[in-house]
């Protein structure tokens, strides 16, 4: 079950999205996430979704995998939607049952938030799906390298991230194995109260920590054997160089952002938009 989580995974490929400069991808994702929160109407949101959809198609990542990335946030989306629908009483009522009523405003906001969250998750998944962890940490290291001035060792932090990403799957496998082994000795991980369950974790986590220590020792030796001595004087296999496609990507996103800004300001504010929705509902009814 733990193995089904796909967020943070990398699916190697050779698409345009894969080949974008990882620094640019990081920046693009960052801008995208901010922009998606600034969207105030469906038109702007639609443009953002379209941009994402095109990126997904260009990446050649299967839609099934994209769907899988949304799975973990499904519950959050569901809960916020339900809350919106129940507590938002703007607009006209569609269903009324005593104190309980569903309004167009509620449905509208619920839909809006859902699209936002999904777009957010898909955008960040697309980043990790198409960028190898090493490149991603490299990009972070380079983007944040100005922090060296304030004595922050960006290289060490990036190296720790690389190692963490590299060992997560290994440790997940290990937890799986230890759990099976302790269950075979009758460990009961599913039943009991909170204290009992907490106690039941000891046989899992003690070996995990001890094994991780010995892994860390081994890894440190292995890294020393390969002449690792910190970030000083290191070169890289993969050069990061902005190419035409990177500029195209950022200009496209900026264009979408401008569109978002204009629609936000000029066309319709969300309230007005829901008024339009209201009149439509009235018309239908």
């Amino acid at each position, binding site marked *: 079950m733990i*193995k089904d989580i796909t967020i943070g995974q990398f699916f190697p490929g050779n698409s345009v999205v894969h080949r974008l400069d990882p620094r640019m991808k990081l920046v693009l994702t960052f801008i995208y996430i901010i922009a998606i929160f600034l969207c105030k109407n469906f038109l702007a949101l639609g443009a953002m979704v379209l941009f994402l959809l095109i990126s997904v198609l260009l990446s050649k990542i299967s839609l099934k995998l994209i769907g899988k990335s949304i799975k973990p946030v499904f519950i959050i989306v569901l809960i916020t939607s339900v809350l919106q629908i129940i507590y938002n009483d703007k607009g006209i009522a569609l269903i009324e049952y005593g104190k309980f009523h569903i309004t167009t405003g509620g449905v509208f906001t619920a839909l809006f938030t859902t699209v936002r969250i999904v777009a957010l998750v898909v955008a960040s998944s697309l980043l990790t799906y198409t960028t190898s962890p090493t490149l991603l940490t490299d990009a972070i290291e380079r983007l944040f390298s100005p922090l060296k001035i304030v004595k922050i060792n960006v290289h060490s932090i990036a190296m720790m991230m690389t190692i963490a990403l590299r060992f997560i799957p290994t440790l997940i496998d290990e937890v799986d*194995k230890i759990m099976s082994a302790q269950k075979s*000795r*009758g460990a*009961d991980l599913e039943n009991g109260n909170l204290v009992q369950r907490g106690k039941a974790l000891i*046989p899992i986590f003690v*070996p995990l920590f001890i*094994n991780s220590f010995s892994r860390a020792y081994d890894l440190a030796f292995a890294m020393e054997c390969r002449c690792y001595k910190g970030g000083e004087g290191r070169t890289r296999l993969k050069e990061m160089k902005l190419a035409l496609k990177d500029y195209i990507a950022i200009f496209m996103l900026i264009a979408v952002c401008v569109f978002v800004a204009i629609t936000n300001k000029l066309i319709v504010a969300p309230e007005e938009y829901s008024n339009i929705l209201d009149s439509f509902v009235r018309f239908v009814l």
Partner: protein
Amino acid sequence: MAIIETQNLTYVYSEGTPFRKVAIEDINISIEEGEFVGIIGHTGSGKSTLVQHLNGLLKPTSGTILYDGKDIHSSKEFTRSVRFNVGLCFQYPEYQLFESSVYKDIAFGPQNMGLSEEEINEHVLRAADFVGIKKEMLKKSPFDLSGGEKRRVAIAGVIAMEPKVLILDEPTAGLDPKGRDTIADMIDNYRKSTGSTVIVVSHSMEDVAKSASKVLVMNKGQVEFFTGVKEVFSNAQRLVEIGLNVPQITGILMDLKAKGYNVRTDIYSVDEAKSELLRFFKERGVL
């Protein structure tokens, strides 16, 4: 009656995802009480998946597993009792030690069984004795022991539940020749003195040939052979084809046979090979 039986046992990993993989398919085996069964197959042949079904750790996608003639998933209570009756010791079990003393670690299983302090004590001492852990070692931290000792303590942790069926997944992996012999003797001794059923999973025929009465050869999630050791070796060529190792001496006899000479290949001990080759040399008049 068979102590363990599987009927049309099939298990599929990650059903319904792009990573779907059939691990074992339509396994029908039956293991008699007191038998010593070796399960061999290369990595990914499904042997580890199979044994994790026998103590109810994995639930079959389809098919049933019977313990003592009863479906092990017939009730939650029964599944739990099977856990204790079918002891499963994983590969590299020393990586699962966690207690502050050897005694406590071995006692973990018996404790979970809900035994009394007194019974637990008896179980632990008996198990320690089987694996050759001395009394003064019981107070030590398991993390202060050598690799081979840790392995034996971990195995004792399973034996301490005094299961009717003891399953060991690659019990000698990573050990030196002496360590391998010690563990093999220990398992043999355990089976002889308790009459338990023993199942040993391995990569190579060499490990199981000495003591197993029957061998289950797994290939691509299915049963290739399930028969006596001799019969399996008489199909030595097939073992090589499915990527398994045969002992060096079996290999020599196979080489000679491939050259057209009339020698038996169902041989796996040096003594047997010696008498077969002497017979052959006499027949050919070179001796």
